């Protein structure tokens, strides 16, 4: 069910790259989710509505992908993602992700896709760092505790 699916992963990645290209060429904006979220407030004319529409597109697109992808791509399960985390765990992790992406000015999309595409040294450093601490966290959870 959670096996490696190279084709759907690559197709998904291509779609993400295409989405980042549209936002850059049409809007002149970088598709960094954490920065799009972070600058939604305070509300400013010309700076809020496009962010809201982009972010509203994410769950809408995810639903479309959930409905369409299993029938056109091999290895995509037709089941909903199983999230098995307790409430305090979700809140604690959410606070860490929100705080960290704001201080580090980017996440997996802004630094990981767009920054690396631009060959940004800052983004290479950020990606190496968050990959390392994330892998360490999973290692401790799965193999130490």
């Amino acid at each position, binding site marked *: 069910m959670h096996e490696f699916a190279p084709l759907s992963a690559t197709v998904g990645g291509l779609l993400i790259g*295409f989405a980042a290209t549209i936002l850059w060429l049409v809007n002149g904006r970088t598709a960094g989710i954490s920065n799009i979220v972070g600058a939604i407030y305070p509300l400013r004319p010309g700076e809020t509505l496009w962010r809201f529409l982009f972010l509203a597109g994410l769950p809408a697109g995810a639903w479309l992908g959930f409905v369409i992808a299993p029938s056109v791509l091999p290895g995509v399960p037709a089941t909903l993602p199983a999230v098995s985390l307790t409430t305090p765990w979700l809140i604690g992790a959410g606070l860490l992700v929100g705080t960290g992406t704001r201080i580090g000015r980017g996440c997996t999309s802004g630094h990981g896709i767009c920054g690396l595409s631009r060959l940004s040294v800052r983004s290479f450093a950020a990606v190496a760092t968050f990959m*390392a601490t994330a892998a360490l966290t999973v290692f401790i959870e799965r193999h130490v505790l």
Partner: protein
Amino acid sequence: MTRRSIGYLGAAGLSGIIFGAGLSAARMTDPQKIWNFLDFAAIPHGGWDPSLAFVMAGGIAVAFFGLRLDRWLRLPAPLAGPAFIKTHRAKVDLPLILGAAIFGVGWGLSGFCPGPAIADLGLVPQNALLFVVAMVIGSWIAGRILDRAERLAAPATASAVAAPAQ
């Protein structure tokens, strides 16, 4: 509303939809999939799932060219926007590394990074909503702390750095 602003807002929404569809098709909306990538200790046993690396490679393969097209085509401005807006920061500094480190811990604990968490509002809202609300609060608090720190550090340039980067 002008035709230009309809194009601007429409492109933002369309980009979000395609982005979300990509995340969902690649199953990045499933925290289990993220954990199975981050679990590098599973490589020797054959239980490792490299999907996330393929997603990033696919994204970069397109964005590498897409984010350069403005220069290659010598576009003076975006097709429907006022200007190409990019961060002016170049140096690797402490906030970058510290922030990325904190983010990584939260990502490892939950299997959620910002994009998939928001995308999951359309699939498993009851779980994703808690995470997203906490994430927005965390970002807001950190933003206030950063603003204050920057104002203290460089009062003269405070207005120049107040704009969010990237």
